[in-house]
């Protein structure tokens, strides 16, 4: 399978990439790791006339920790996140979640920026980053803006990014006294999640403080399980009624049925995976 012909440009800075996007307008598309875009182009479901490759923009690959904030350059690969000392120490849940994406080869190419910008309802990172809480930095022709992750996912395959904007950085807070876990269910190891559940909580004095729970592939965007979050807040860990709390994850969602799962089955998975993610967070 061969993509439709296109022009390929390899800018070396964000500024250069932005002016290429402005110059070519709707014709152009950003290429990051290419592990969503190239398969679509090979199937000819996407046929951009110009590909602007961010692979040559070295300034977008970094992981930094400063004043309780972790900043990850958009072109940082899953593999770099998975093996980063900083991430493993400061946000271990992210390293654990990333290790469940695709396979080794996919993790060597796919980027965190691409995974968020693509806004695939079955993608793992949208729910994981939603549960961790944070924001993305975006640069456009008129400067820079920061978008809270809760406002970033708009609809299926649609984010708050404008076509002439580039996602440059993912910002996450350091998780002090925090625990978390991501659980996904899939038919084969390399498959996308049929459903996924991401849990991130803070624990102090034996009690659960803030809790954020987000689900993969039960709606057009990642879905925050707010009923679960509220039921967790302030509860002593020893008194937690796991079954009752997890049950709330299957309520108030109306997942689309798909080839391998009815809506009912996805609701069942939402409950089971939320329970497992809570169990491993508290283990």
């Amino acid at each position, binding site marked *: *399978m*061969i*993509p*439709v*012909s*296109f*022009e*390929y440009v*390899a800018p070396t800075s964000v500024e250069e990439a932005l002016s290429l996007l402005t110059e070519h307008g709707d014709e152009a598309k950003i*290429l990051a790791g*290419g*592990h969503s875009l*190239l*398969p679509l182009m*090979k199937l000819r479901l996407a046929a951009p006339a110009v*590909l602007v*490759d961010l*692979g040559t923009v070295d300034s977008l690959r970094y992981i930094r920790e400063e004043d309780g904030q972790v900043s990850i350059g958009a072109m940082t690969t899953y*593999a770099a996140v998975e093996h980063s000392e900083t991430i493993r120490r400061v946000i271990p849940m992210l390293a654990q979640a990333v*290790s469940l994406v*695709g*396979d*080794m*080869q*996919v993790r*060597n*190419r796919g980027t965190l920026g691409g995974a968020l910008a693509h806004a695939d309802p079955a993608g793992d990172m949208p729910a994981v980053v939603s549960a961790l809480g944070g924001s993305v930095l975006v640069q456009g022709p008129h400067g820079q803006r920061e978008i809270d992750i809760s406002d970033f996912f708009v609809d299926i395959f649609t984010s708050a990014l404008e076509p002439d904007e580039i996602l440059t950085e993912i910002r996450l807070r350091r998780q002090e006294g925090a625990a978390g876990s991501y659980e996904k269910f899939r038919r084969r*190891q*390399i498959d996308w999640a049929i459903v996924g559940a991401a849990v991130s909580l803070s624990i102090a004095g034996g009690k659960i403080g803030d809790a954020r729970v987000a689900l993969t592939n039960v709606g057009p965007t990642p879905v925050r399980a707010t009923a679960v979050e509220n039921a967790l807040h302030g509860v002593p860990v020893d008194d937690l009624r796991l079954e009752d709390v997890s049950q709330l994850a299957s309520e108030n969602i109306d997942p689309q049925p798909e080839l391998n799962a009815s809506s009912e089955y996805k609701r069942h998975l939402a409950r089971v995976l939320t329970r497992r993610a809570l169990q491993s967070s508290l283990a």
Partner: protein
Amino acid sequence: MPIPITVVVNGASHHAEIEPRTLLVYFLRETLRLTGTHVGCDTSTCGACTVHLDGKAVKSCTVLAAQANGHDIRTIEGLASGDSLHPLQEAFWNNHGLQCGYCTPGMIMAGAALLDENSTPTIEDVRHGLEGNLCRCTGYHNIITSVLAAAESMRSGGVR
């Protein structure tokens, strides 16, 4: 419009003018005639096309040759040194790690990348590392045995 690229493949530098839509696997197979890298699915699923890009295993059917410009590629042809097989090739041979052999170049390249990162893998590490490689013949058991055997032989004085 063709674009110029320069890549180092198995230690030798190659310069070529390519169509931007050329996938790395077709550049390797059709332009450089390195047909050891196979195309199994052409849909990023099977791993038969696995090569190393700057030392990391990638599916070359899902990388543009243009994205490899200025980078270092290693294919199955670059693994043996002269007549002496790489420990992984040796181990696949000894442990019956292949039947038809179609998936083998990809399995070995994925295995080599895995062992570069982790010289003492557990059976679980090997299974996790080879998740992106499918085999229709062997049932995986002997492939995993082969990678573990290669790890062992590389630790006990293997050259690489």
